């Protein structure tokens, strides 16, 4: 029986940020919150291991009260238990403070059931830093395996795991000991569809809520804003490039005339681009 902890994060769905069809302004309001898509690859891999070897999956997240929805969603895919680590003191946490909080919570989970593996998504779509996974691994002294494209085998007797890890230009096949922390590469699997029985189970489930004390955090100086070495000093909109595109038009507006006109303009005004095109094509 293998016990896997999966760390997830609820994030705003930036892919659903829409643009108004007439004014072209970006609308950020009313954007729903979703499970960070990268975390789904981690959860699916954990579920596959559970399917093969039998086991128990605990899903955990550090977030505001509404992050409970993300945990329920994880249960609907097949996770067994969910813990929401939530406390005002966590607000403003950067990745160092976040990994501290999650690591403490995982230590607490260990007290009731030893943890064999921790899965994290590679990064989040709102933070994009890919630091929390490595941070947790370091704190809990877990072997760190990042950018894993597949789990080849898990041997619970020998406490060994073999994985494939994406590297530049190829794949490293690594072997290491449990317990370990894995961050999954995107596209490495496809999340299954939740079955109705699991959806009903998720609707009925009780999500455990831990404040910082329940999560085993004694020193509040290490969490939230206080525990964050990095500080956001400014948020601003990128300065728009004022030069708009020169729209190419011809009398006929036939594709071949437009193409010819465009080529002429590019080649005359940008000789270095013309050179590059000729150089490339001559090969």
């Amino acid at each position, binding site marked *: 029986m293998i016990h896997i902890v999966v760390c997830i994060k609820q994030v*705003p769905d*930036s*892919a659903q940020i829409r*643009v108004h*069809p007439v004014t072209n302004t970006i609308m*950020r309001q009313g954007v729903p919150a979703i499970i960070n898509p990268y975390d789904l690859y981690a959860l699916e891999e954990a579920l596959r291991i559970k399917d093969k070897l039998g086991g128990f999956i605990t899903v955990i997240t550090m977030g505001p009260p509404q992050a409970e929805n993300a945990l329920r969603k994880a249960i609907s895919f097949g996770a067994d238990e969910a813990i929401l680590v939530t406390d005002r003191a966590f607000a403003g946490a950067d*990745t*160092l403070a976040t*990994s501290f909080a999650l690591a403490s919570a995982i230590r607490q989970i260990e007290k009731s059931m030893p943890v064999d593996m921790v899965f994290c998504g590679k*990064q989040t*779509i709102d933070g994009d*830093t*890919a*630091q929390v996974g*490595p*941070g947790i691994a*370091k704190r809990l002294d877990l*072997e*760190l*395996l*990042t*950018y894993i494209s597949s789990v080849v085998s898990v041997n619970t007797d020998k406490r060994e795991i073999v994985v494939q890890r*994406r*590297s*530049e*230009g*190829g*794949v*490293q*096949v*690594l072997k*290491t000991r449990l317990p370990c922390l894995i961050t999954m590469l*995107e596209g490495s699997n496809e999340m299954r569809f939740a079955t109705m029985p699991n959806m009903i189970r998720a609707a009925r489930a009780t999500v455990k809520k831990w404040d910082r004390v329940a999560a085993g955090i004694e020193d509040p100086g290490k969490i939230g804003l206080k525990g964050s*070495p*990095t*500080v*956001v*000093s*400014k*948020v*601003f*909109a990128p300065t*728009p*490039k004022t*030069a*708009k*595109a*020169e*729209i*190419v038009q011809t009398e006929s507006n036939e*594709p071949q005339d*437009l*193409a010819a006109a*465009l*080529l002429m303009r590019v080649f005359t005004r*940008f000789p270095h*681009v013309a050179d590059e*095109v000729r150089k490339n*094509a*001559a090969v």
Partner: protein
Amino acid sequence: MSVEAKKPAGKKKFELDPRLAEYRGIWVFIEHERGAAHSVSWELLGEGRKLADKLGVPLAGVVMGAPGEATRGFCLEAFQYGADLCYLIEDPLLNDYRNQPFTKGMTDLVNAYKPEILLLGATTLGRDLAGSVATTLQTGLTADCTELNIDPEIRSLLATRPTFGGSLLCTIQTLNYRPQMATVRPRVMAMPQRDAARSGNIIEHPLSMIETDIVTKVLEYIPDQNTSKVNLAYADIIVSGGKGLKKPENFRLIWDLAKVLGAEVGATRPVVQSGWVEAERQVGQTGKTVRPKLYIAAGISGAIQHRVGMDASDVIIAINSDPNAPIFDFATYGIVGNAMTILPALTEAFRLELAGRRETAAA
């Protein structure tokens, strides 16, 4: 290490806490795998040079690898790209990248020589290493920065990166911890000039580990099958397609044009997510950043998430049937029309132009 903040009160001149002030110098991790250095390392040296000059401190490269010519060669290259000195750890255990020994090596170096700023490329290796190092050193790490600056008064690194799905930018500082760490994606910074005459000092340091200390073993390395490796990040001409092409079959038109131009093929995230092309071809905030001389975007609206990945291109040609598409706000040239007819016309036009030229050249 960290210190309690001492806020500069009123007009009193700001004095950096002496324990933080002990940390001086800009370091760039020189990443290499299987005998080749990753060019993001040179891009970071170029950027590091500017930061070092502003602060009046030396710029150093950090090289870790198996003993031999190849590893030392990276130090020499680093000097040519602007490093004043190079910290070198040579050990057979560092032959292949593994998190544990590399983290120990880097953190030992940092604790011994105390840099104020440490930069790494935001590659698979770089991110793996940066996260562990930052946590071990208990310091701040800002990832995927698009801009790096210095506030000289307080000797602080100003790291700017996108936020809120890319529609806004934010500047982050690590005020009370050292070193200030940052990762930068490949191709975001420009490649500096190489000066073959330049050289510097190498400072060696031991790893002090044995194989049995290291739990993870590399069983084998499997190189990628496709010989046509996708080299989007360094391509000089890219033809890219978006969901405006409507059907996966229409993406063929992008390939046709790319073939005539000898260009690489790129795509937007929705196209990749729909499975029209492989993920390596995604250009944008969560994909690759590119800086080609020519970028042709067909059926791409120009949403910010894609834009940040390609708006540093020299010339951008946009083809879109919607005259209000945001891409026309920043492209160099635009054609408002149906990509399905414009692309073949463009392909033909380029083909004729190049055939004509080749004939003239041959004549």
